[in-house]
């Protein structure tokens, strides 16, 4: 069974806040849920499927189901870090195709800024019973940034990728962010500014890193018969795939991500090729994340990502592949340190023709949203979804 054409994204919402000092975590989940349902033209009582991940308060979906007064007959709290919500779109389409629900709500929210969390630069132990990997990693000080940095270091060693090429990814994101009134960083930056920003963990500079923001977002995925009755432009789910990339028992290979597997699978299900894609939402925790995923999804040959992203090639209206036209996680928003959901949101805006006019891709009828969750350099979850405007 394929999910192709079996489900539609009918509603989206991105919380405008980037600092949620005066909002509770549950409140942000509920506010974006309300926003996405209103965007779709549906009500809370239409929801019969609920999806969330580890950012939701409480055990799995239970606290938020209670807080929002939902009565779902299908729930899924699969957590693959920041890629969870892209994976959830695929799972929602599967559940809808199998008749397990008709209106699936996906929510994300977080307050890392309000809570003063040291997000990327301090090793984090999960507490409780250690994971099997923890004793062999945590004492050495793995952080988010230094493990992604090792991927960049090896990529540079094997393929000659440069800091200037990586910097072009931030430059492109900043060109888009200047038009997003909610973006945390709205200033356009240059390659020189990126490579001259302070070194955080070699070879990644401060401006190679994403922003840290509070906020959230929600997506409503519906059955075709529901989508047919709604007034918003129709965004169809064409294909989806997920994968967990690990250290493979010590056969570590930092030069590729799980997108090597999810990309071909999702494109095959959708029946399209990377060259057909008009707009790409690509997870951008760091510049290197984007570069590796573009290669692995098949937008360019492995090792040629540096050349592919250089010279403004990711800037809408300028380059070959417009990416993250909301400014992405690199400049606009990375709520809860999980950027997968916002990737789907901007893809839907592009397909609806509702992106900012300065970055809207003309006749944007086919888009991809791809995410990496966890740590690119330790173990990560990858998820890809292909979406089409009908």
């Amino acid at each position: 069974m394929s999910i192709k054409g079996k489900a539609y994204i009918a509603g989206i919402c991105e919380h405008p806040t980037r600092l949620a000092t005066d909002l509770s975590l549950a409140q942000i989940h509920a506010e974006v849920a309300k926003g996405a349902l209103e965007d779709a033209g549906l009500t809370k009582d239409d929801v019969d499927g609920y999806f969330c991940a580890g950012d939701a308060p409480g055990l799995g979906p239970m606290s938020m189901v209670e807080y929002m007064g939902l009565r779902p007959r299908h729930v899924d709290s699969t957590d693959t870090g920041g890629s969870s919500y892209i994976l959830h779109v695929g799972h929602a389409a599967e559940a809808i195709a199998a008749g397990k629900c008709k209106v699936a709500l996906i929510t994300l929210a977080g307050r890392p800024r309000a809570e003063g969390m040291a997000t990327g630069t301090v090793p984090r132990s999960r507490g409780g019973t250690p994971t099997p990997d923890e004793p062999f990693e945590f004492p050495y000080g793995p952080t988010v940034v230094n493990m992604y940095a090792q991927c960049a270091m090896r990529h540079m060693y094997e393929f000659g990728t440069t800091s200037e090429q990586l910097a072009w990814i931030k430059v492109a994101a900043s060109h888009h962010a200047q038009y997003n009134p909610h973006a945390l960083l709205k200033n356009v930056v240059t390659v020189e500014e990126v490579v001259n920003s302070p070194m955080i963990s070699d070879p990644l500079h401060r401006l190679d890193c994403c922003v840290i923001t509070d906020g959230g977002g929600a997506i409503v995925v519906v059955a075709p018969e529901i989508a047919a009755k709604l007034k918003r432009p129709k965004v169809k789910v064409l294909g989806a795939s997920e994968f967990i990339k690990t250290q493979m028992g010590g056969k570590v290979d930092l030069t590729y991500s799980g997108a090597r597997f999810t990309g071909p699978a999702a494109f095959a299900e959708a029946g399209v090729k990377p060259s057909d894609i008009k707009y790409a939402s690509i997870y951008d925790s760091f510049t290197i994340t984007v570069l590796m995923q573009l290669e692995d999804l098949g937008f360019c040959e492995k090792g040629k990502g540096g050349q592919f992203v250089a010279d403004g090639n990711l800037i809408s209206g300028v380059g070959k592949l417009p990416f993250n036209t909301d400014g992405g996680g690199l400049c606009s928003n990375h709520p809860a340190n999980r950027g997968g959901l916002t990737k789907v949101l901007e893809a839907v805006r592009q397909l609806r023709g509702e992106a900012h006019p300065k970055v809207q891709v003309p006749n944007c009828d086919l888009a991809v949203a791809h995410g990496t969750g966890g740590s690119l350099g330790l173990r990560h979850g990858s998820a890809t979804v292909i979406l089409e405007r009908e």
Partner: protein
Amino acid sequence: MADAKERKLPAPAISPETQPYWDAAAKGKLLVRKCTSCGEAHHYPRTICPFCFSDKTEWVEASGKGTIYSYSVMRRAPVPYAIAYVTLAEGPRMVTNIVDCDFDKLKCEQAVKLVFKPTEDGPPLPMFTPA
């Protein structure tokens, strides 16, 4: 030059499954787990082989020789340190630190050798230094 002497290292959490690894570390030996069914060594150590799922695995002592697969110097830490993946001569790559060296001269594929550094209240950690 920063080195591990100035950096406080947390003790690893030890499970019954990995107790021998840490007992050996206390004696200055690095163990890897090897499967007698498929012949492959793996890391981190497991009772069941992650390659062929056989339970016929055993401890073998590593030579302590390796090369840097990748690394990064964490500049934004109270005491900067170099995290790395080292490829052991026995095959597996492991997360570790490169210590007692000039961080600015590190390179991928550089030869390194085993050293141990004390933790706050646990067994010492296997680390590497340029050979």
